[in-house]
């Protein structure tokens, strides 16, 4: 057990030594992998931020039913039970014209406008949440509501949320595709690095086999090399992604402030960075495994 652990420790330190002995090779290999990983990692963070942003908004379909301007409070009260009875209505909330006006007054810049009007231009409104957001249900509900008395207009509010949702799903697909492609690239890069390493260590491998090295003894340093190469690429990728986000955030904030928002893309969370690094390490190991399986058996002492 101790010998086993010592064997691994020796392989690990020898591999680290080998990486340190060729700092430029190591650096550039890490950079290649890092650039490949930074794109999906950064894309993932941006998407995540956007999803959080839209998550505060309900994805359920909402309809606003505007009543006639002439409608009396009694009419609104009359309409409510009728609406509740319609199929597809989950909940109902009344916004009276007075409440609507009060809210409008609070909106920046609108207070003066409203005051100058001298009368309330807003109708009573009923906010209906649909039980499901399928297009059929919504269309039927809109038709049903329009048929009710004193209803002036029905507005479907959640269409843009659906659009955003669809856009985010598209973005996620793009990120997943990108990540898969670059994962394959990572495996290929490590595969090739290990192949070259096996070739340069051909003599050593042959001698080791001749003096009693087991296959696992010979493979072990290559697995470490692949995993370390992948992980160092993962670290480089995270740093590049973080730097990119930091670079982007300044103009994004300036832009968002024009709209009175403090929106910023959040930095890559440590747990996700750790996930990127471990997955990169695992992929590196996979590349090394494939390369070793393919190339090592060709070296048999004669």
């Amino acid at each position: 057990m101790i010998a086993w652990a010592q064997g691994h420790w020796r392989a690990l330190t020898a591999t680290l030594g080998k990486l340190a002995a060729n700092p430029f090779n190591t650096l550039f290999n890490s950079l290649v992998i890092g650039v490949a990983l930074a794109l999906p990692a950064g894309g993932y963070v941006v998407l995540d931020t956007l999803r959080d942003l839209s998550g505060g908004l309900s994805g359920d379909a909402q309809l606003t039913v505007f009543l006639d301007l002439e409608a009396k409070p009694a009419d609104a009260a009359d309409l409510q039970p009728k609406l509740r009875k319609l199929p597809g209505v989950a909940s109902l909330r009344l916004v009276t014209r007075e409440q609507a006006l009060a809210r409008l007054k609070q909106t920046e810049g609108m207070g003066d406008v409203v005051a100058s009007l001298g009368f309330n231009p807003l109708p009573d409104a009923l906010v209906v949440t649909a039980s499901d957001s399928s297009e059929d249900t919504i269309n039927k509900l809109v038709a049903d509501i329009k048929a009710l008395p004193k209803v002036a207009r029905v507005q479907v509010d959640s269409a843009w949320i659906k659009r955003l949702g669809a856009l985010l799903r598209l973005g996620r697909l793009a990120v997943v595709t990108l990540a898969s492609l670059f994962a394959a690239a990572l495996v290929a890069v490590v595969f090739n690095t290990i192949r070259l390493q096996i070739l340069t260590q051909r003599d050593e491998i042959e001698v080791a086999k001749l003096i009693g090295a087991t296959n696992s003894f010979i493979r072990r340093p290559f697995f470490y090399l692949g995993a370390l190469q992948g992980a160092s690429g993962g670290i480089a990728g995270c740093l590049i992604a973080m730097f990119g986000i930091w670079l982007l955030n300044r103009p994004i904030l300036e832009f968002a402030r024009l709209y009175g928002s403090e929106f910023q893309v959040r930095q890559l969370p440590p747990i996700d960075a750790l996930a990127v690094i471990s997955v990169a390490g695992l992929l590196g190991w996979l590349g090394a495994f494939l390369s070793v399986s393919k190339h090592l058996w060709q070296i048999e002492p004669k």
Partner: protein
Amino acid sequence: MIEFNAVAKRYPGGHQALHDVSFGVGDGELLYLTGHSGAGKSTLLKLIPAIERVSSGTVLVNGQNVSAIRRNAVPYLRRNLGLIFQDQKLLYDRSAFDNVLLPLNIAGFPHKEASRRVRAALDKVGLLAREKANPVTLSGGEQQRLCIARAVVNRPNILLADEPTAMVDAQYADDIMQIFTAFHQVGVTVLVATHDDGLIARHPGRVVRLEQGTAVQ
């Protein structure tokens, strides 16, 4: 200790290196394997650590039939043998010390014990002062002695040497044979393939002669 029974070896491509070889090597014996080049000496030696496999017949090493040994058992067989190769197979990317250390690393020796054994082996072949040197900077005789140190550092009970004196002049050859004789005297079985009859005359031992792929005692 080592026993060849009706061993034949035909290489892929049709070259018949060994026809029908039968002989034994006793425990602690010093045995010369002679014959002109191409007689099959190297092939015969390669059968013992299962670098090559017999086409027919059996090779027994310490009672184990190495002609039918499983692939994953081969490394453990080789750890009990000291091999000295005709082309030396030293590694020129590391020091003499690290060359000798390799078999112990493979066998999983703890570092302190391994260092002690490496120095002991280098001392035995007279290279202790050159432990930090790269093998490239060593003379031919020194390189050959380094090979011997690497072969014996594991303390094997069988030592196999393929033309160990081919690359060195007569005086160094005698030095090398003296090292082998010393191991033989402490009970190690030593099998030396050589075509140098003068060497055999100066360091006597049993001789097995290979002629056209068969053994002549």
